[in-house]
């Protein structure tokens, strides 16, 4: 068991700065998600932690020890790659056994550990197959088993669900989370999918253009985004941002409701013209404009489908409102102003 810390990590590829001074600590047993759009540097950061890339500057500490010069095998990490990186010429059994063989573990011990990992991930019936004979979900589990047998101090997962279809992804997500809770090993998980991040992470680190924007629990990140980038990156549809003396005012679409639904409490009223509606089964998304206020993009409202429309129609003005407690203020630089 161990903690991993990145201290002021910077990585440059020629003129491009992929990682720009990121400091981050992963606590023992924690599931930390690195979330950001493609090309934001999250995978590069993970590869630096793994030892597959050298940082231009900064330090990686595992258990308080600087491991910058240690090769990947000496860092006690295990990594699951986006396309799993299974050895195509080896059977499932030998794929799982490979990291143990490189460490010179006795063959009886290898056998025992491989059987244990295969049973834990429910792939023991596949042990004589080759990777090409496996489905996407099975491959992912083999990759996890291979990572697990080494009993690593930290798991690094690089978008391991992105190659699965949508249905499988949902079940694999909960399996993976359960698995992590069973083994209780510190885990760093890279994804660009906010649903994965929100659903799995104990904490989320949001990264954009190589810079760390915010670290916090899913609730903190969603409820109190540190800046406009985080506010608009999380949530579907993202937070509404409207201009307000220099800075901006933000509120979530699900907090933006017809006035009559928000009785009594301190609210901010905003006349809203619905331009179009989307019915999504469990909810309705209303797209429109606000009267007298400039918005950074189209304003949206998310209503549960069971809320009656009460004659609301496209093209007409309606009285909408937000509870004052749901309003977020951002300054000129886009950072949240805490009241």
């Amino acid at each position, binding site marked *: 068991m161990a903690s991993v810390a990145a201290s002021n990590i910077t990585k440059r590829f020629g003129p491009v700065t992929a990682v720009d001074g990121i400091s981050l600590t992963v606590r023992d047993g924690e599931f930390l998600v690195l979330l950001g759009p493609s090309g934001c540097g999250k995978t590069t950061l993970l*590869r630096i932690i*793994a*030892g*597959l890339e050298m940082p231009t500057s900064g330090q990686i500490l595992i258990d308080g020890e600087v491991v910058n010069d240690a*090769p*990947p*095998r000496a860092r006690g*990490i*295990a*990594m699951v*790659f*986006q*396309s*799993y*990186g*299974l*050895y*195509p*010429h080896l059977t499932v059994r030998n794929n799982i056994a*490979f*990291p143990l063989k*490189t*460490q010179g573990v006795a063959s009886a011990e290898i056998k025992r550990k491989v059987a244990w990992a295969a049973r834990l991930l429910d792939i023991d019936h596949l042990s004589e197959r080759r990777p*090409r004979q496996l489905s996407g979900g099975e491959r992912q589990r083999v990759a996890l088993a*291979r990572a697990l047998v*080494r009993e690593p101090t930290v798991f690094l997962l690089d978008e391991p669900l992105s190659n699965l279809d949508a249905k499988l992804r949902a079940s694999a997500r909960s399996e993976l989370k359960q698995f992590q809770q069973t083994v209780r090993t510190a885990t760093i998980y890279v994804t660009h999918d906010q649903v994965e991040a929100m659903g799995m992470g104990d904490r989320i680190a949001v990264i954009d253009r190589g810079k760390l924007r915010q670290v916090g629990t899913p609730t903190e990140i969603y409820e109190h985004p540190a800046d406009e980038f985080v506010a608009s990156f999380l949530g579907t549809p993202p937070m509404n941002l409207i201009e307000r003396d220099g800075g901006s005012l933000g509120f979530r679409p699900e907090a933006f409701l017809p006035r009559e639904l928000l009785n009594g409490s301190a609210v901010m009223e905003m006349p809203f013209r619905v331009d179009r509606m989307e019915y999504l089964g469990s909810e309705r998304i209303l797209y429109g404009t606000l009267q007298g206020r400039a918005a950074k993009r189209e304003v949206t409202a998310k209503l549960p489908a069971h809320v009656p429309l009460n004659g609301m129609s496209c093209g007409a003005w309606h009285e909408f409102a937000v509870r004052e407690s749901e309003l977020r203020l951002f300054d000129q630089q886009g950072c949240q102003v805490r009241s």
Partner: protein
Amino acid sequence: MATITTDVIPRRRKPRYLLDRVDVIGPLFIAPAIIYVLVLVALPFFLALYYSVSAFTIFDPSYRFVGFSNFLDVMKSEIFRRTLINTFVFTIGAQVIGLLLGKFAAMLLMKEFPGRGLARALVVLPWAVPVSLATLAWQWMFDSLYSVINWTLVAVGLLNPETHLQWLGQQDLAMLAVTVVHAWRLFPFGVVIFIAGFTSVPKDVLDAATVDGAGFWRRNYQIILPIIAPIVMIALIFGTVFTFTDLSVVYLLTKGGPMNGTQVLGSLAFQVGIMSGDVAHGAVICLFLFPFLLIAVVALLRALRRREI
């Protein structure tokens, strides 16, 4: 009750042009290939089969049937047996040297360094240079008086200045010489094949091996080589077939000499069948290639099939 109505499928209109008809255009497209194989492969092959059991020479072009006596003549010949051994030494030697050097060069050329593009282009040169021209250069390097190889060996102290190695004058040295020249010609092929193989190994797999603790040797011989084995296999079989039937280097460098010491099946068949005009015996020598090539081709097709899965 629901009824399902099926639309009457409209009859396909007859194509307007003859060339729009699949049954016409198909055979038309495939015909050149079939004619090519029939005229330039099948016909000479059956002609060789026929010559091999006849007494056909260019001085007496008779198709008199003589049974298997030509085969017995050839097999009894000391020169032929020597040639057969030479052919194997030449083929296997050239493959081993060519592919080994190719692998190391490919590994070097995979690394990033200034001038890599130029180096890659230069490596392909032995392939691009006409064989006659290249062999002429090699002939001078092996020359009994002016050999740059001897000079180098003397300069680095590996050879006594008194001993003049007769590269093309001694049977074993001459055999080594033709094998090395042919390996030099094969080498770019090996480089290209290995570079193609190395780039086809997914980066994730290599990274996984690194994280799993595999060092340089383990990564190379337990991960990369098994993954690219089917590609290398194809290169090996191709190289073997081409070398087995090749006579250009031997013919240009030594003409099979000294005293038939470097004769290979191709050059011997050419000498007997064409230069000496004994077509029947030349055909027999050529046909000795056939069983070996058949095995090689079957192996090639199997390797290709394995690659597809």
